[in-house]
Structures are given as C-alpha cells and as structure tokens.
C-alpha cells in the first residue's frame, strides 16, 4: 500500500509541477461551460428570411412570428445575402407576385417548410385550431446527448493521461526500477487507477452540473462513475501498454477515441436489430447507463442492469489486460 501511495503522490506532484492537473481540470470544465452557452442557441435556432424593405410591413411582421427576418434595400442585396454560406431564404416581390428565393442547394424538407410558412400566412386560415401538449419540461435531446459525450470525454481524458505516465516511465526506463520493486501488477494498476478515477469523478460531476445543473439524480451518476472505474483505468493501461513513446501514444488514442466515445454514440443511429453488435463494449453499457440518467424517456436496458454490465464487462477486460500488462512491463 505504501508503494501504491508513493506512485500516486509522485503522479500528483508531477501533475501539479507541470500544470497538467490545472489543464486537466480547466479544459473540460471550460468546454462544458462553452457547451452550456451554445446549446440554448442551437435549440432556439429558427428559420431565417432575407426580405426587401419594400415588402408589406404586415407580411414582415407575420414572417417574424416564424423566424428571424433580415431586411435589405433591394432584390440584388437579398440575392447576395441568400448566396452567402449560411442558410437563409429570400422573400421578394416581383411583378406583383411574392417569390420565395432559394439558393438551389436546400434539401426538399427545407423548401417544404418555407412553402408551408408562406402558404399559411397567405391563406389567413384561422379555422385550424392547434394546441400543444408537452410531456416534460426538460431540455432537448441535444443537451442530454452533449452532456453524455462530455462526461465520456472527461473520463477518457483522465484515463489516458494516467496512461501517459506509464509511457513516460517506459521512455525514461523508470519502469525497470518499478519492475524490480516488490510492487505487484495489481498494485501498479491500482496506483495508476486511483488518481485518474478521482479526477474523472470530479470532472464528470463538474461537467454535469455546468451542463444540466441539479436536474438529474447525482447519486446514480456517482454509482455509474464508480462502476466505470475499471473502464477508466483500462483506457490508461491500453495507452501505456501499446505506446512506447508519445507518438505511438497519440496513435493508440486515435484508435481508442472512436471506439470509446463515437461508437456508443452511433448506437443512436444504427437500427435496433444491429445493436447486439455493440454488446461486447463496456462503454456501450456505460452509455446506456448514462442515457438512463440523462434522457427522460425509458431506455431498453435499465440503469441498474446497464451499470452492472459496465462493471462486469470492463472487469473482465481489465483482468485479461492486467495479465498482458504484467508481462509487457515485466511486473510481478
């Protein structure tokens, strides 16, 4: 235990000396803060119109009820605006007839939306009564999705930075000294895992508070973070075992990142019948557990089952990998 604490203290002092800890804490939290500022503007994104000043004021007022309106002095200016890179559609009046001015690269659904708006304004139909009923007041799926992605990213950052310490020990040959010390492979893995998991838990909870405030069950988040500790540790060990230097470390991370963050996220896009292809990934179950916490609608797998599966699958991988790591680093 003394040797484990000694490695942790050494990692901590290196992290403090080189500002690594500061960067590790500040960067993800700032990123979460930026995301929390950005999400509302994405959610409130509405359609946009570029109109001529000469258009009837009543029509412009009606258009404002549907989206943002930018006014220009002439048809040419409206055309120039529509041709710019962002998405905006012109409304101009030529030869007594209103014209919806598109650039030509808009998808059909965008064209249909603008047509529906203009048809609705021009028909003045008031006999269609529409009521809205919201089932919950939580944010959109985008916010929840980004929060889960941020949490998984912070866990990955914490895990792989611990892996960089192993790489540094391999580069400086310090690992040879550890190998001849009484420290066992299990002890070494614990030493590498404890600090990275403490940082991971702090960062993940901090990111979550910034993004969704206190609107989720933090005891559940803490449970899945603790049950994910094998997985966070495993990420670091994979980097440490396969990378001999910093260049190969980033190469390993380049392969690890899509496998860890992107593939579970893609489970949203792939058909349900194919999701069994991802069952072997502990991070798939981690994503399912986090989905239970953040999404307001029921998930196919319950929080408890997903959390247990995260723990079991990552535990199996860690067990298998620890044997490989022990041999690779010549640990006891």
């Amino acid at each position, binding site marked *: 235990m003394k040797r484990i604490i000694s490695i942790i203290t050494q990692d901590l002092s290196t992290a403090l000396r080189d500002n690594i800890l500061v960067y590790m804490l500040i960067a993800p939290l700032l990123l979460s803060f930026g995301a929390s500022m950005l999400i509302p503007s994405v959610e409130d994104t509405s359609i946009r119109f570029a109109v001529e000043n000469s258009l009837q004021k009543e029509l412009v007022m009606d258009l404002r009820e549907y989206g943002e309106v930018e006014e220009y002095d002439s048809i040419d200016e409206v055309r120039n605006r529509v041709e710019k890179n962002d998405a905006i559609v012109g409304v101009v009046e030529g030869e007594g007839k209103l014209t919806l001015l598109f650039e030509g690269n808009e998808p059909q659904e965008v064209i249909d*939306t603008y047509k529906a708006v203009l048809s609705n304004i021009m028909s003045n139909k008031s006999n269609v009564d529409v009521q809205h009923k919201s089932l919950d007041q939580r944010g959109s799926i985008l916010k929840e999705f980004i929060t889960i992605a941020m949490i998984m990213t912070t866990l990955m950052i914490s895990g792989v930075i611990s892996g960089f310490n192993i790489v540094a020990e391999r580069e400086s040959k310090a690992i040879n000294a550890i190998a001849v010390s009484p420290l066992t492979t299990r002890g070494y893995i614990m030493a590498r895992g404890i600090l990275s998991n403490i940082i991971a838990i702090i960062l993940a909870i901090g990111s979550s508070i910034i993004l969704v405030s206190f609107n989720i069950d933090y005891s559940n988040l803490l449970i899945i973070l603790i049950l994910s500790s094998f997985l966070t540790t495993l990420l670091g060990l994979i980097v440490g075992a396969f990378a001999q230097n910093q260049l190969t470390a980033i190469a390993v991370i380049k392969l690890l990142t899509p496998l860890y963050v992107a593939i579970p996220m893609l489970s949203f896009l792939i058909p349900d019948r194919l999701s069994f292809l991802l069952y072997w990934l502990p991070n798939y179950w981690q994503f399912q557990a986090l989905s239970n916490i953040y999404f307001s609608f029921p998930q196919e797998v319950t929080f408890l089952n997903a959390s247990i599966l995260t723990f079991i699958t990552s535990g199996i991988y860690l067990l298998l990998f620890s044997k490989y790591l022990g041999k690779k680093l010549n640990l006891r």
Partner: protein
Amino acid sequence: MLKGLMNLFKKDMIIALRNSLFWVLIVTLILMIGMVRFLIPDEIQLTDNRLIFDNSQDKALEKALLYGGLSEENILQSEEEVIEGVRENSQSIGIIYEGSLESPRFTVVHHGKINPQQKKLIDASLKGLMSALTGTNTEEAYQLEFIRPQAPPISKKLTTIPTLLVFEVLILGFMYIALFMFQEKEEGSIRAYRISPGNTSQYILSKTLVFTVVGLVYGFSLVLLTVGTDFNFLYLALTIVLGSALYTFLGGIVGVFFNNISEWFAIGVSLLVINMIPIISSLYPAFSPKFVTYIPSYSILLIFNEILFPTGKQLFSTTLAIVALTIVAYIACHLLVENKLMKEGR
C-alpha cells in the same frame, strides 16, 4: 534549401510511419469505410416518428396519411396510446386530430420546451396538411425561384465524408506536429538542429509536407472508396493540401507552449472539440452564428461539400479566405517556433 527540406521531410516521414501512424491510418480508414458503407443507413430517419390518432367521424386524416405511405403502426387508437408512445420514444411526436375538415382541431404531443417560432412552424405544417386535404392550396399565390438549378438529393451516409475529411484527415497535422516537437525536445534534436544549416522554415515545412502527403493519400483513399470518382480531383487535392497545411501550422502554434503530451492533451483535445462545432451547422444549417463561421473547419467543410456534391456554388472567396488564414497561421507558427521552440533548444 530544397535539398535540406527534402532530407528533413524524409526523416520526419520515417519517424511518422515508424511510430504506428501507418497502421493506425489503415485501421481507421477501414473502420470509416465500414461505418459509411454498412453501418450508417441511407436515410438517418429510418422510421416516420409521427404517432397519429384521428378522432374524427370520417377519419379523413388517417386515410390520407395511410394513402401517402404512413405505416399502420403509426396510427393509434386513443389519446392515451399517443401520449404513451411519445413518452416511450424521444424522437416521436404525437398528433391528435378531432373535429372535421371544415373545423379541424389538433393537439400536438411532444417532449420538452418548444419556442413560439417552432410552434408556429408545426402549426403551419398542419395547416398545410389540411389545405392539401381540402384542396385549398395557396401555392399559386406565390412562386419559387432558385438562383442555381436545384441540387439532386444526397445520400445521408455520404454526407459524413466531408465531416470525416476535416475532423479525421486534416487534423492529423495539428496533433502530430506538436508530438514531433515534444519528442525532439526530449531527445535534444532541437538543440542539434539549431547548430545545423537548417532553418525554421525548413523545420516547419518538412513536417507540413509529411502531413500534406499523408492527408492526400488518406483523404483520397477515403473519398474514392466511398463517394467514387465523380468529383473534381484537382480541387479536392488543393483543399486537402491547404487544410493540412493550415492545421499543421495551428498545431505548431499551440504545441510550442507545451513540453509533453500530458501537458498538451487536455488543451489539445478541447481545441479539437471547439474545431468540431461547425458539425452542428451542417446538421442544422440555420445555426450559423458569426463565431462559428470564424472557425476554419466551417469554411473547409463547405468547400469539401461543394467538391463532392456540387451545387454550382462559387466558393472562390471562401477558398481565398482559407489561403489568407493559412499564410497568417504560417507566419505566427514561424515566429513562435523561431522565438520560443528554437530558443528553448539552446
């Protein structure tokens, strides 16, 4: 000058390939092609997410929607079923129709908060639906004009290719130039380089050349094996060269401030995440606030989109802006490498 540059280029290329880069790129390429060709569906929206309950006497809406191709599974028999269905699926929207064609009443059941403009858009589409049902379309009251001919629809899975080109292929230089610097600092090669005849330009350009060549091979392999050959090869090559150079210079600008991968990682990853914000604009084209358009990947994404799926849009000024940015980035990178990295090597 050129001979020195080529010698450095050879050395950097060997270091890059010796350190697993080649194998990582091959595996990533296979993963990306597999994902695009087999995993991502042609249309992201696999199923119609509308849950309809037509509570009217004549069931006119239900009949019209079924005739229009809506699956019977989307037609429900009570308000409770609609609410339950929406509750179970975050993507669903419930539409309950009552009354008659002359006096229709709708209740839209959804998740979360919807702003007034979005509500009005939903109302407009429902009113449009009723107009179509009653044959009172007002489309003749206005006309549509397209500045350029309408572009053909693109398979949704292929729209991921420009995104992969920017966020996988071009960013290689951003990451690797920093790592080269750390490695060289640690090994003392920077100190050796200072007393060699090589200069700062050669130092930066040799690395830029490595990631430009790698980017060209990697990028073209990805495009040829997914999109095919129907695109402007020269324009794609030029954009990859320009983009790879820009990101390598930006990577150099950031990299000089750090000493090793541990220090750089959290900041480097965060900058790469910020660089990815324009993906939101590709998903929601109306979301393009000024600050997003200033992120270089925003313009490069547009250029790649236009190259692979041409719509006739002129992007000369956008390309020119990227050229200007690349020149500025080079100057900044040169000054920082000269005054910070090379001095540290003394």
